[in-house]
């Protein structure tokens, strides 16, 4: 049965690495921007190829953006929960999206079509002419905000505060008619057409396993580790540093003095981007279906014996690519982590751990109190997130899940990369264009009557 009813909502998903925006009912986000580089003026940097004028701010402030050396302890990535840290940066990213998508200027379904050609000139002229009036205009679309959905039970009040902040921002600053805040795992499951599922979100900040029952997150059973894209990039960075003392990212190529600002957050962002590029290149191997005999980067002597390949860095120098660097994604499933002693800091909470992905899944389902439910959850494992595009990920994971046959795990994964990486946004787009969803919005009138406490109660 088709139960869709488009109401012209605007959906925004601000993650720790990438922010996605678009109108509800669309197949994919229209405006995708990094959430890492926000200048002091409020301008969001589209890339890290050019040095910014001022120091940048990031929305989530992951720990990987703080120190000056590569951060190779995965547990350290858990210290800061995946939640919005810099609210000004958060607002800046949203403002930029609202401006680029012309959410304030025109409603989506206005009869006057805005042609692509005149769009740029018009926006410029409008911005020049009535800048003051458009920026203060209220947003006429209902807004769906995608929350990170990190149920950090160690600080439940923090989550409540996040939702309250978002509500106040939307209702008071933007004066939108209606608002809804939904967690990423729930929306990702909706994007895959399921309401009961185990969502495995492989993001930049770490892997997160969240069981869902009828679209509701089981908070006690969520498990998270710090082995995400950022961590893998840092491991590669650390390995590359042992070869070459100076690594110059793109923005430093034209600069004559390279060591000007090497400890800045922007530099770290640029370095991560450099190694992310390598990690997503064809140099990395697909995941093996059987566990490899040794963990990558665990034995330095082996690294020397393998014949090296050459990878050209942006500044023209060649990096020797060892076998371990090609197999870097195996670290998702390895029992130990390289470069550090095993007796590192303990995760601060029961829902946080340092276990490899397949054990994380088992831990998560073991924490589901309703045991018969585990059967259904095991048969609906969804792979989403920015790292879900790693080749052979689904078969490699399923080969490592040796569960009893009553709980045969089944892994579902969209064949399209876009659907995997922005599953949260797509789910939001689907949710807001459902007819039966329209009763759930938190309206401006309700907000004025009850305040943001109603938001905390209503949003899942």
């Amino acid at each position, binding site marked *: 049965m088709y139960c869709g009813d488009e*109401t012209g909502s605007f959906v925004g998903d601000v993650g720790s690495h990438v922010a996605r925006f678009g109108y509800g009912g669309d197949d994919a986000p229209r405006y995708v921007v990094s959430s890492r580089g926000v200048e002091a003026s409020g301008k969001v940097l589209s890339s890290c190829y050019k040095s910014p004028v001022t120091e940048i701010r990031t929305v989530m402030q992951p720990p990987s953006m703080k120190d000056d050396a590569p951060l190779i302890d995965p547990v350290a990535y858990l210290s800061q929960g995946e939640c919005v840290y810099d609210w000004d940066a958060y607002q800046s990213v949203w403002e930029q999206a609202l401006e680029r998508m012309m959410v304030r200027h025109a409603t989506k*379904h206005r009869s006057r079509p805005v042609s692509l050609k005149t769009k740029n000139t018009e926006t410029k002229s409008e911005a020049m002419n009535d800048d003051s009036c458009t920026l203060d205009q209220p947003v006429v679309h209902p807004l769906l905000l995608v929350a990170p959905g990190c149920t950090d039970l160690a600080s439940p009040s923090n989550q409540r505060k996040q939702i309250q902040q978002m509500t106040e921002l939307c209702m008071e600053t933007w004066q939108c008619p209606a608002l809804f805040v939904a967690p990423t795992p729930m929306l990702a499951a909706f994007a895959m057409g399921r309401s009961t599922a185990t969502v495995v979100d492989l993001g930049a900040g770490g892997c997160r396993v969240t069981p869902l029952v009828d679209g509701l997150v089981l908070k006690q059973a969520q498990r998270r580790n710090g082995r995400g894209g950022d961590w893998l990039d840092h491991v590669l960075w650390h390995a590359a540093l042992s070869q070459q003392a100076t690594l110059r990212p793109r923005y430093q190529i034209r600069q004559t003095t390279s060591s000007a600002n090497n400890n800045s957050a922007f530099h770290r962002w640029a370095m991560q981007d450099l190694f992310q590029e390598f990690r997503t290149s064809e140099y990395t191997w697909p995941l093996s279906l059987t566990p490899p005999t040794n963990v990558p980067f665990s034995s330095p002597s082996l690294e020397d014996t393998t014949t090296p390949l050459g990878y050209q860095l942006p500044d023209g120098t060649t990096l020797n690519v060892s076998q371990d660097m090609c197999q870097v994604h195996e670290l998702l499933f390895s029992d130990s982590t390289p470069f550090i002693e095993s007796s590192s800091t303990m995760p601060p909470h029961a829902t946080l751990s340092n276990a490899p992905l397949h054990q994380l899944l088992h831990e998560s389902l073991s924490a589901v109190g309703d*045991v018969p*439910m585990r059967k259904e959850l095991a048969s609906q494992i969804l792979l989403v997130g920015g790292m879900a595009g790693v080749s052979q990920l689904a078969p490699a994971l399923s080969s490592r899940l040796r*569960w009893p046959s009553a709980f045969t795990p089944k892994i579902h994964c969209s064949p399209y990369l876009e659907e995997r990486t922005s599953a949260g946004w797509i789910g939001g787009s689907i949710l807001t264009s459902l007819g039966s969803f329209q009763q759930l919005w938190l309206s401006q009138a309700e907000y004025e009557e009850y305040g943001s406490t109603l938001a905390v109660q209503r949003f899942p």
Partner: protein
Amino acid sequence: MTDVAEILGVKSAPKPVGSNKSLLPKPYSELTGSATELPTTVPTFIKIGNKQINSHKPARKWTWAPFSSSSRPDGLLLNHWVRANVEYPDYPYARFDIHLDPVQYTIEEYKAWLTSENWSQSETDTLMDYARIFELRWPVIHDRWCAACPPRPVEDLKHRFYTVAAKLLQRRVSHEAAVETKALEAAATNNAEDPKLLLETAAARSLASSDPQHQPLMQHLGTGTSNKVFDLAYEKERRAHWEALWNRTKEEEAEELALRNELKQVETQLRKLKKRGAHVVAASGTTASRAATPIPAPEVAMQQVDQAMTTTAPTPVPGVPYLQSARLVLPATGGETGISKALVARMEALLAGMNVPSTVIATKRACDLMDTVRRDALTWLLLQKQVIQKEGVLRARRLKLAKMGGNIRVVDEETLLGIAPPPAPRPKPVTKGPAATAAAAAPGKAKASASKTATGSKLAGKKPAATASSSSTTAASAGAPTATTTSSADTKTKKPAVKRKRKSEDAPPAFPNTAPSSDEAAFSISTKPKKKAKPSTTKETSSVSKSAAPKAPLAAAPAPATMTQKETSPKKD
């Protein structure tokens, strides 16, 4: 058309003078040929789904219009696309706004009916709230519960919720019924002769007075509850099984699978053996208790063997040399008088098993002995074959009997055949089953024999309870209650019984007359159980067991456990 008219000689109508358009200036559209004049390539009717759409009609208009839903109390105005000029009474999706009714109680009700040792009122209130908010999605309720309160298992939460709901339903109904009874009684005193009123009063009174547990099933559809009692013990057990399943490793699972496959193989093997009747041989081989079956007409077999032997053996003719070694030729096979090749082969195998040399020095004495041995072997084999045939006939008849009269108790195979356990040193005059004699003989052997009866009963697949009870009665009379417990335990648990059975089947069938001692043993039993079996068969087939059976327990010193079993056994008949 004009050409045809000319050919046919038909005069066409003269053209009107003023209609010559070529002289007049044409509009621009006519010169170029506008799109409306061209034949359209789009078909007139397009089918989309089940709808036929006329493509030549203009499209229906849709507008981007505001709407409000009746499911929203605040009257929020949102926009959506709707058909123009169509009035919607309400937002179509407002009817999906359905919720469960909350289970509610007052403080007085809670204090009167719902207090519990394990649950405080605040906890119960929280549980009811969660049940309402999450609408009985128990995994979610349990998740939120563990975050807010001290953790409890899911089944406890469910039990509390459904018990509270059931109690409320029960008590409220009986409470209301009590009120109604009063009113009706008051009415009945005024006009006592109204039968309808009296009936109603009686019904209300019974509903009010009777135990709430015996109320008819009532369901409260709004809350998804009923007055049925939640079975906590069953739920706990069920979840424990799930938990055990979850905690199993792959290796344990593989082991179980292998065991299951093995069991299946054994069972198919057993079925095959049973079909051929070889289980009798196997059983006799292992326990050396091939019992005296009622063997009819052994003379036929003897005759057959004699005939076969005499056809090949040379008859001494005067004047012709007579060789003793000629007597060593195998008996004739095939033909009218001969015996089957298979039988001869089996005989050879049997003799080889007993270390009888195939060639002997052909003296007269040796040849005579050889002849006798062969004759005996053949006879034995033939008799065995007959036994198997008779058993088949017996089984078929028993089946027929069971079909014809259901209530007639059918005699168990083992007791009928009198397959007895190892011999009892002290024969007792009391009528006994085979198990009891064994139990009396040696307590160590009791278990084995009891299990044997159990397996035997399972093999027959008829009435395991009957055998168990019969053996138990006899065991009680012999004063050995250990045998009773073991036998009943064995009938209960299938696996050990099957394993034991497998052992006995896998062992190579040894022949009873390989060792003279076992042969003697077999012989010594062969006479006894015949007598013993007889009364039991007559008793049971003639269905007078009701009178016969209860006598035994009364005579024996009754243990309480066996008493109950005995009492049940006649009931089953």
